């Protein structure tokens, strides 16, 4: 018979920006039943243990995105995640923390202004010339609607944004949620601002080229929207609409095709030169010297090639769909 209840220990992040200098953790033991969600636990902490405990909540149906927190560092939409399932991963001590402890106002409530400011930067709305008194509907075909790839299901909970390590260390990077929104409108056949958004997103430091490809956003999204997949689509759209700039990140992506056609496998050294340029490549000398001394550099004359290279060359020619 399955276990119906468990006695669990919750370590709960507590902080009041107005009165506390440092945050602290309350330890609360509770009997939890198998159907209880993290939101039920937070409600019980407030109702049964400490009425001053603060957290955001609203719809209780996974739609409003208010109650997103972290449990043992795992982004969690509190009204969706079952407590027993978390116990299965982390054991019987669960740590409840806000999405970003550095931005805490009070307990689980954080200042999300950085999230919304970045969201604003991608013009996250439909920009279209629509007649004031239309005489017929603006019908979007099923095929065209599918291109949005469910990006319109984003509930703006911030789970992906506060899980993104690039956001964590790079204040400029606009992050996976804003990029998912950008795709939602850039894939919309009615929208007229596609080029505008793509131009904004080409800037190094803030745009699509600063995604570190860790897939934390895909793992975190409670609606399983695969934000990194949308970032990839924005990359592909950049080339399709010929909006790419001539910078190190773009040359790096394009350089793979060039190098694969030449050797099958990648010529790592040449790729760096191709991406950085003959002058820019010089800045890599400090790490190239120890690499050379430890037998980690392959010179062009020793560059290994894939077997059946002719096959690869032919495929690069016939399967390429993008011109640069």
């Amino acid at each position, binding site marked *: 018979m399955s276990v119906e209840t468990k006695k669990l220990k919750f370590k709960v992040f507590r902080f009041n920006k107005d009165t506390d200098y440092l945050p602290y953790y309350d330890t609360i033991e509770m009997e939890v039943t198998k159907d209880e969600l993290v939101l039920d636990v937070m409600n019980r902490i407030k109702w049964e243990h400490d009425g001053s405990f603060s957290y955001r909540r609203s719809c209780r149906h996974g739609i409003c995105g208010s109650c997103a927190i972290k449990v043992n560092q*795992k982004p969690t939409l509190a009204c969706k995640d079952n407590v027993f399932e978390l116990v299965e*991963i*982390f054991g019987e001590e669960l740590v409840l923390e806000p999405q970003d402890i550095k931005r805490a106002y009070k307990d689980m409530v954080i200042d999300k202004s950085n999230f919304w400011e970045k969201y604003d930067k991608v013009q996250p709305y439909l920009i279209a010339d629509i007649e004031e008194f239309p005489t017929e509907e603006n019908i979007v075909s099923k095929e065209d609607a599918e291109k949005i790839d469910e990006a319109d299901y984003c509930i703006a909970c911030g789970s992906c944004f506060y899980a993104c*390590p690039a956001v964590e*260390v*790079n204040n400029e*990077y606009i992050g996976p949620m804003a990029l998912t929104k950008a795709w939602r409108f850039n894939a919309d056949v009615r929208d007229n601002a596609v080029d505008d958004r793509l131009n904004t997103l080409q800037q190094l*430091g803030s745009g699509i080229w*600063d*995604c*570190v*490809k*860790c*897939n*934390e956003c*895909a*793992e975190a999204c409670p609606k399983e929207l*695969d934000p*990194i997949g949308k970032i*990839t689509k924005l*990359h*592909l759209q950049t*080339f399709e609409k010929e909006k790419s700039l001539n910078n*190190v*990140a773009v040359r*790096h*992506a394009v350089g*793979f*095709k060039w*190098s*694969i056609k030449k050797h*099958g*496998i*990648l*010529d*790592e050294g040449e790729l*760096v030169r191709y*991406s*950085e340029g003959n002058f820019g490549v010089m800045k890599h000398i*400090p*790490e190239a010297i*120890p*690499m050379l001394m*430890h037998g*980690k*550099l*392959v010179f062009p004359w020793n560059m*290994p090639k*894939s*077997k*059946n290279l002719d*096959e*690869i060359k032919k*495929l*690069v020619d*016939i*399967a*390429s*769909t*993008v011109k640069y």
Partner: protein
Amino acid sequence: MEKLKYALYTGCTARESTPELLKSTLAIADKLGIELVLLDEASCCGASHLQDFDDMLSLTLNARNLCYAEKLGLTMVTICNTCQLNTALTKDRLDSDPELKAKVNEKLAEVGLEYKGTSEVKHFLYALQDDYGYDKIAQAVTNPIADINVASFYGCHNIRPSHLQNKSNGGENAYKPVSLDNLVVALGGNAVEYESKNKCCGFHVELQNPQTANRLSGTAMLDAIDNNADMMVTPCPLCHLRMDVQQHGISKEVGRPVDIAVLHLPQMVGIALGIDPKELGLHHNINQKGLNLK
């Protein structure tokens, strides 16, 4: 048990900037009695960057690599997390979308190949864990890495996205991975508990944003060091290139010396199996602290 046999997709770095990875992989496979057939025909997987430029080309090239494993009738093993991700993603998309598969096969037919979807792809780490078994590896240990604190660094592309990776990584949880830590213990070492073990090293923005890359690697490495790690181990050569080769830049960025040896997974196994350090290519590692090579 029947002798395990795999098609080895080496990826590019193992043939260039991390020769020690290929050497140590072949050395431990030989010692453990695992047969690896090298896929010399394979091309680069695109490393998640070609995928940003030309989707159809990257699918076709990855499908071609899989064709050669299929021809041998073998499971493909990878020794690079990013090769694993891109190959598994290609396989997943083609196996679930007959129309897309037909389009790719149209291209492959022109060079006399056909992608069928008959070969699985898994990282060597999970071949050791799920097919070979850590019990058997523990029995083969002659030189336990006793009293050494090893911090496992998993690398993103073996554990995320889990809905894809769980098909080949034994259901590893992306928020609490255990496979590498359990291997450290099987080899006689102490597995270091630290928060950053499943975090990103920043490799993929190293050229356009070295500051991001150095901050990410630095945070993880200092976390390992502050939790008393004597060395780190990773199944991914891209993480290795970041964390072994770039320690100078990382230290400068984080304002603290980051000075720790980072082993490739098969190097660590090889040490415990008593394989000669030269065969494991330990002399190729830039930071050799605690490796006692002299």
